[in-house]
């Protein structure tokens, strides 16, 4: 959940001093959206769903998070690995669609299994 403010800062300085790194020819925000994904756990958010959903809104993309538990480490959140208050559509993105889109081989394996 540190991501939105981190990107605001990176974006602001990229606008100011991008002449130092001219090969970065797209906004850092865009590069992150197209190239980087983030595992969900441990989620740094309060337990109220309203704030959590504001934070997802700050990311301005539902394609970034990938469901994760960190099992068997002590931070493992047990049965509460998925924070409360996420919409069913977002849950589906985080738990199914985003991992498939990120790990291309999973998708291919799933298709092969369906076909066989």
């Amino acid at each position, binding site marked *: 959940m540190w991501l939105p*403010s981190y990107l605001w800062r990176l974006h*602001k300085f990229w606008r*100011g001093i991008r002449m*130092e790194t001219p090969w970065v020819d797209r906004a850092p925000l865009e590069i992150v959206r197209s190239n980087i994904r983030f595992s969900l756990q*441990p989620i*740094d958010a309060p337990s109220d769903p309203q704030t959590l959903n504001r934070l997802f809104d*700050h990311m301005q993309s539902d394609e970034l998070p990938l469901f994760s538990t960190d099992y068997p480490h002590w931070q493992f959140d047990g049965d509460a690995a998925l924070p409360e208050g996420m919409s069913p559509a977002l849950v589906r993105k985080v738990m199914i669609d985003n991992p498939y889109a990120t790990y291309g081989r999973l998708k291919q394996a799933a298709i092969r299994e369906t076909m066989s």
Partner: protein
Amino acid sequence: MNIQFREHPEQVASIHAKTAIADCDIHPARATRTELHPYLATRWHEHLETYDKRPYHGMMDGPPYPKAQPNAARRDAYPPEGGPQGSSLSFMQQQHLDPNNVVLGVLNPLATGQGIRNHELAAAVCSAINDWQIDKWTSKDSRLKGSIVVANEDGPAAAAEIRKRAGDANFVQVLLLSRNVEPLGQRRYWPIYEAAEEAGLPVGVHAFGFGGNPLTPSGWPSFYIEEMVGHSQCQQTVLASLILEGVFERHPTLKMIMIEAGFGWAPSLTWRLDKSWQRLKSEVPHVKRPPSEYIRDHIFWTTQPMEDPERRDHLSDVIEWVGWDRLLFATDYPHWDFDEPTRVLPPGVSEANREAFYLNNALKLYGLSE
């Protein structure tokens, strides 16, 4: 491009047309290399001539990354009489204090004795900087207030300097930098907090420093842009250290200010600290309350460089989470990433919140409310 050339400073119709503001981060500079000499014993003139100042950062002078602009400062901020940006009181008044209606300006000198390995020299230079702030700035313009700079790596010397200046109304805070030999919560720095609390002075922690550690936990970055972004990560380790070493448990009235490192990261750091504390508090039994409570009770944030999301309602969310009563407006004059006072807040902010943001929070924190 971020370079603007102007023949003359921007003119405004009336200084009273703009909201009165407190600028909690102004950087005063010395016009010449020898400007501090009157405040230093002769032995130090000779020492500096022969050996110069050597910081923990190693065999270097000045900043570790090229600053994008000379002295990291605005091109239009060179005083007409010569000298570097920020070195002339009259030009600072003419270019910034008067037209922007600054009624309180907090001086944060950066090139001081902080981070010098020779602790005696560090203490002498810091004390000289404090005398210089009075002579050159605060005694000449009552809007300006100084920061007590201290030999940060020498706790007892730092505490002595704070006690020496404790009753002096020219100063409103103690100033540290974020990059030190160790994270700022550790024991070597405790005498500083003890003396500051005793004097009723808040302690500001400004981004930057000379402690010799890489800016990031994964080594030295290549570029200045990474340093600018990295100040926020560095400040987060400072804040976590202060809380988890129990500084605020020992000093329940101490206030601290995070300067020029952003505030957008504060909510997520707070949530993460609280979550980890819930599970690991047996490791740090001296941390008796959730970290969020210490942050709410003890920490203030200067605003520049202002968080700048694509959607302005996201900025309003973050300020709500941090608290409208915790932010202190700052411009960073005369540096290049100066925040223009009229342009930082989203529309629709209540009058009370605007006044708190621009002025009243600072007056209250620094004990200058009428």
